[in-house]
């Protein structure tokens, strides 16, 4: 679908991976950013969903042919972007969540681990049962960054809290997500961190079904999904996919498009810890803020891979 003033300057095309729109999360967020930009800059914004993997390249190519900038949303498009970018050196590309070495590709990477770390801190302090649950979609890098960041955060404030990790091997099976969530709650976890796209929606069904307000929480990932289970979202670990897309378009409009890796963390406002409904107790919030300042002044570097996680140690709080 396409929005924006038709007469306006040029077209920007977003290409999704096979998951496609509707996750009310990653892809929808990117779409939101583009739609916003379309209104602000009067460009035309188009989304091409990929019916399968072979469709990545033709979709990207279609994007190239109808506009100067093509936004590839998702780690899985890495190779396709590299391929098409090489084929069209003077076209501009932005890829979210992946790094592509090419001087016409802007790789927008997020330091999810920073926000996830703060989320871990908050969760580690909020848990009553001293048990936390992670539900992953598939263990791809962005998910890993979330996971290890969160675990590091928890350990930083509550070393003896237990973290139960379960993967659905699927970003699109909410019923399975729900079963995982129910099992986690039944197992005693009281705060869930679903990093699983549509599968994560199942966690919200689970918690609203159990309906123990104030005792069990789910953490919003990327963006709030409070509407899926009103009153049960403890806080949000935000990932500004929308801003990433928006900024890329903005640069294109102002002719300031720069290739290379754009790493967006808390400092750049790319990710962040948010408590839209004021459910995080004040003292815990202050804890979170101290760690946030440590991340900002570089005295704390949240781990982003299993290796970094192994060697990670919390610096003595200054």
């Amino acid at each position, binding site marked *: *679908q396409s929005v924006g003033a038709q007469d306006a300057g040029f077209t920007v095309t977003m290409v999704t991976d096979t998951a496609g729109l509707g996750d009310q999360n990653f892809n929808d967020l990117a779409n939101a950013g583009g739609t916003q930009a379309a209104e602000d800059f009067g460009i035309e914004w188009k989304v091409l969903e990929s019916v399968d*993997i072979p469709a990545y390249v033709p979709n990207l190519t279609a994007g190239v042919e109808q506009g100067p900038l093509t936004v590839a949303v998702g780690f*899985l498009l890495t*190779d396709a972007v590299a391929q098409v970018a090489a084929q069209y050196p003077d076209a501009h590309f932005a890829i979210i969540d992946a790094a592509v070495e090419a001087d016409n590709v802007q790789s927008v990477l997020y330091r999810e681990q920073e926000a996830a770390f703060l989320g871990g801190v908050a969760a580690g302090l909020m848990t009553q049962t001293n048990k936390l649950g992670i539900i992953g979609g598939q263990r791809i*890098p962005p998910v890993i960054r979330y996971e290890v960041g969160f675990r590091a955060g928890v350990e930083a404030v509550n070393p003896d809290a237990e973290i139960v990790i379960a993967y659905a091997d699927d970003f699109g099976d909410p019923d399975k997500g729900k079963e995982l969530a129910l099992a986690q709650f039944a197992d005693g976890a009281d705060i869930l961190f679903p990093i699983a796209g549509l599968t994560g929606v199942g966690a919200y069904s689970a918690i609203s079904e159990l309906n123990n307000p104030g005792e069990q929480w789910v953490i919003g990932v990327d963006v709030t999904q409070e509407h899926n289970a009103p009153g049960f979202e403890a806080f949000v670990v935000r990932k500004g996919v929308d801003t990433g897309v928006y900024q890329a378009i903005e640069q294109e409009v102002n002719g300031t498009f720069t290739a290379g890796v754009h790493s967006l963390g808390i400092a750049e406002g790319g990710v962040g810890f948010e408590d839209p409904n004021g459910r995080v107790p004040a003292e815990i919030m202050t804890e979170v803020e101290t760690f946030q300042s440590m991340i900002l002044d570089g005295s704390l570097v949240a781990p982003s891979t299993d290796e970094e996680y192994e060697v990670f140690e919390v610096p003595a709080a200054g």
Partner: protein
Amino acid sequence: MSDSLRSRGLTMTVLTSVAAVAVALLVGAIFILLSQQNPVTAYKALLEGAFGSRRAIGETLAASTPYIFGGLAFAVAYRAGLFNIGIEGQMVMGGLAAGVFAAWNLDLPRVLYIPCALLVAAVAGGIWGAIAGALKAVSGAHEVITTIMLNYLAFQVLSYTLLRTEGWLPVNPQLQATKPSSPDARLPNILSGTRLHAGLLLGLLMALLVWYLLFRTTFGYRLRTVGLSKGAAAYAGMRWGATITIAMFISGALGGLGGASETLGLLGQQYNAPQGYGFASIAVGLVGRNNPFGVVLAALLFGTLRSGSTAMQNQAGTSKELVLVLQGLVILAFAALAASGRVQSWWAKRRGQRFDEGTDTVGVEPGVAPEL
């Protein structure tokens, strides 16, 4: 006179086929209208996107390639009297095997590496098919069910291999794919500026081979006899079990090659996603009346739908799932028209008459060995 018979059959086939596609597109138009888009622009976009440019044509041919393999795979099994629903899984196994083999970067010369990779794929797919054949031969297990089960098993094997075997196999769990194939194992591009690769030629070659096998060799005769009359086959001393097992191996091998042609040709590596041609392949076989050359044409039709759908989505804003809808409609339309003989009998029934229909199935004109 037999020739006139045949040519009449042929024109009949062509007519019904065209009619079926037309019907399918018409009903499809209703859906496009439903989604408040203009069918005319949509279908124009489809043609544009499929044939509008050199690259479009390349894309269409590239998109048709896997259907050629799939359709052939289905046809071979069908001629032997088996319904191979498992082409999806056989493609996965073939693609995975080829992907891993090609990613090993063995220092083989191109002329060796590619054939070896293809062979590996054919064997992998073939075995996956032969399992279903053997099960039917041994315990009469219905191949439709076994192949469906084998599909899901194949998907499990795929994701297991890609996610859990990093240590000892050339896979990249993060990307959920095999490592990129060695350039020496890649099928060469055959139309510069497009993604069209030698897989197409391989497919056409296979069509030729399958035709020769089915209609010119003693084994082909045996296969077709077994497929049409178990009793007559036994009478002529043809071993049913062995024949269907081999037939399923060939069918699976063709599927495996299809997977390999995607992995080594189009994508360069095997991802953790079924290629998704398996079920459409049934339609390709059906639409192609399980005749190798018919299959090639049907594959072009389906390839066109697929490659055109990108343009449709882009220019007419139709949903990407429209391809599936159109494919489904094409199948139903063909099934109905293939049954048109039976349609009459059905009307006749309504009028209170009765015909003696065999339990024959759609999609084959048995007996007639098409001339080259």
